[in-house]
């Protein structure tokens, strides 16, 4: 059962209902608010004291009209939903994904498969209970994403696999992909799941056996592991232990603000001042608990894993989300360590990418954070996933020195000269760059350590600057331009001659790297080798 057959398909029949979810809730809320006494009477047998709108209708003898109006409204809603469902179709061919939607204002959106920047599957809580998922294909550009909301959960997974397979330039017939374990993707379709743990694909087959079967399937899907164990080799999976996750969220700059607020409250109470400070700060303290809670639930079950079709980042306890970034879609990688995390040796990894999903990432952060918190070991494994070319003993040593070294000569980085201390009094020793296997590394910061990787095949341009101050100090500034994102690859101080060398070597490296770059057709290469 595949949807990527070049034919037009419709979405999950409940999609209009699920998409309009918030309005349904508002309507329910309105009804309950108006009829609450009746509900209380029906459930608990407490007699009502005052009338409600239903009594009013009954007294005025307008029951017939009311029923008619309700029926008309229901029919109109149903017709509109059915129409919008009928008119919302999509097609996945060999070249592109297309979506047609709209009843009065028709829209037709087409995205080329070889331009895909990522495929995201989101399961918000309510649709997830009904076994539906939202699939989003992101391409570069503002508001350029193709959204399929909603699809059956297993269908969405299958569709993503097919889209990524085609996007990778694979020309293999689809039947092989559907029937057997495809060697190119390594993802068996008839998934042999772990015993006692029915995977989504299995349970959907049984779903037809009736309501009981349906419920079992939904429960099975709900309890299934967020990351299908067959999708990725387990040794490539990076997860976050719960304690570390909580620790990392608690040890943030937000906590510093909270602590200051608590101290202020205590001081004001002890010194016996009037309660205005308490009134001002207490709501904030209460709200901060909600903030911590939502951040933690949103990053629970976080996993990042390497699949043959790219890096897969998944997270979420109630609302789950997972995004697959095909190879060669990551434009810059930043590894940072705030000062508070240093005693624990934790790091955060974020990336620049051209496509932007409309959904938030883990912990409510931008979806550009691919590892909210991890140890040095986790960071190296994540870097192996996102920089496949950057593996080897030399590169490992370079990563470690880039993250931990205090700087200075002879650690593989060309660091800034001593006179740069005028501009970077603490971090000049660590400010430097290195070039290794088609990747530029930029090391910065001594209080908050920072290491930036730019794959030269993705580099847009390189610039060096010099103003009057740096001219006096014989220094310059270098900057590698990538697509917009949280990572900026710039070097604030660099020796002037070194800057010219950097400029030449990176400009040449970028051309060489993009000539030899084949990552946008990752599957073609695989087919040759297998």
């Amino acid at each position: 059962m595949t949807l990527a057959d070049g034919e037009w398909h419709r979405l999950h029949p409940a999609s209009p209902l699920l998409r309009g979810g918030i309005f349904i809730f508002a309507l329910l809320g309105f009804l309950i608010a108006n009829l609450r006494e009746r509900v209380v009477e029906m459930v608990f047998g407490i007699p009502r004291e005052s009338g409600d709108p239903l009594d009013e209708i009954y007294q005025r003898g307008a029951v017939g009209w009311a029923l008619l109006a309700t029926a008309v409204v229901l029919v109109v809603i149903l017709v509109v939903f059915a129409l919008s469902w009928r008119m919302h179709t999509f097609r996945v061919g060999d070249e592109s994904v297309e979506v047609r939607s709209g009843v009065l204002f028709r829209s037709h959106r087409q995205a080329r498969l070889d331009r895909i920047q990522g495929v995201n599957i989101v399961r918000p809580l309510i649709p997830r209970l009904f076994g539906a998922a939202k699939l989003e294909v992101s391409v570069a550009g503002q508001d350029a994403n193709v959204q399929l909301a909603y699809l059956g959960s297993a269908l969405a997974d299958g569709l993503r696999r097919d889209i990524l397979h085609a996007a990778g330039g694979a020309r293999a017939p689809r039947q092989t992909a559907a029937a057997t374990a495809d060697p190119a993707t390594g993802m068996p379709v008839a998934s042999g799941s772990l015993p006692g743990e029915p995977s989504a694909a299995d349970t959907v087959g049984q779903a037809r056996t009736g309501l009981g079967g349906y419920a079992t399937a939904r429960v099975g899907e709900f309890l299934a592991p967020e990351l299908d164990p067959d999708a990725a080799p387990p040794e490539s999976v990076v997860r976050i232990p719960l304690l570390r996750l909580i620790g990392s969220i608690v040890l943030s700059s937000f906590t510093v603000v909270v602590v200051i607020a608590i101290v202020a409250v205590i001081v004001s109470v002890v010194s016996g001042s009037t309660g205005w400070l308490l009134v001002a700060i207490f709501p904030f303290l209460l709200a901060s608990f909600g903030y911590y809670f939502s951040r933690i639930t949103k990053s629970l079950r976080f996993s990042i894993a390497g699949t043959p079709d790219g890096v897969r980042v998944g997270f979420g306890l109630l609302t789950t989300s997972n995004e697959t970034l095909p190879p060669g879609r990551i434009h810059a990688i930043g590894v940072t360590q705030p000062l508070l995390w240093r005693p624990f040796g934790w790091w955060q990894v974020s990336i620049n990418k051209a496509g932007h999903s409309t959904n938030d990432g883990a912990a409510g952060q931008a979806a550009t954070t691919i590892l909210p918190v991890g140890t040095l070991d986790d960071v190296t494994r994540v870097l192996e996933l996102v920089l496949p070319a950057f593996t080897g003993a030399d590169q490992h040593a370079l990563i470690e020195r880039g993250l931990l070294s205090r700087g200075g000569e002879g650690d593989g980085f060309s660091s800034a000269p001593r006179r740069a201390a005028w501009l970077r009094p603490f971090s000049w020793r660590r400010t430097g760059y290195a070039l290794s296997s088609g990747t530029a590394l930029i090391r910065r910061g001594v209080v908050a350590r920072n290491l930036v990787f730019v794959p030269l095949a993705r580099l847009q341009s390189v610039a060096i600057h010099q103003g009057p101050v740096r001219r006096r100090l014989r220094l310059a500034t270098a900057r590698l331009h990538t697509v917009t994102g949280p990572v900026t690859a710039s070097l604030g101080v660099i020796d002037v001659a070194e800057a010219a060398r950097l400029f030449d070597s990176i400009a040449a490296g970028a051309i060489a790297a993009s000539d030899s770059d084949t990552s946008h057709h990752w599957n073609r290469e695989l087919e040759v080798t297998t």
Partner: protein
Amino acid sequence: MSDYRDTDTGPAAPTEPALPAAQPAVTEPAIAAEQPAAATDAPVVPPVGTRLDLPEAGEWQRVSPKYVMVEIVGSLIFLVMICVAAGLLWLLLDQTWAAIVGGALALIVLVSVAFEPRRVRSIGYQLRADDLLFRRGIMFQRFVSVPYGRMQLVDITRGPVARWLGLADLKFVTAAATSAVAIPGLAEDDANTLRDRLVELAESRRAGL
């Protein structure tokens, strides 16, 4: 103009070895016609080690010297606006500080106008084998290298003064917002030729993002 464009679009054009040969042909005659002194006026060699420079780089193509006029007219309009604003504040509202600030600003603008020819001379570009090299600035220097394959689009704009002088600005846009390669003050024909050439080069070295 048309003859060397023909050679570029010939059958062998997109291959790489043809490029270095074609490159001087595209830009040199136009520059030489407008600014015979361009070659002798090449980048002033700075004291070793202090100034940012690319010793390996080849010969820079300059923009039209007429572009100085565009910059000067812009500065003068700004100057007039400062004078009017400061004058109004000073004479009508009796704000003496406005006269001082306005005078100081006007002085800065006048001094920068004096440096304008030198600044325009510092703008340069090169069509290398695989990338476009761009430089500008004397006080605040900037060198940028953009591989042709990274081009998303080329923009040609003409302001009123530039149009009167027959000039155009060319902007090379990549997926990075910060690349900002804008070559101002090209003769209109040069700008069109350069645009076609860049599009052709980008086409032959196409890459994804």
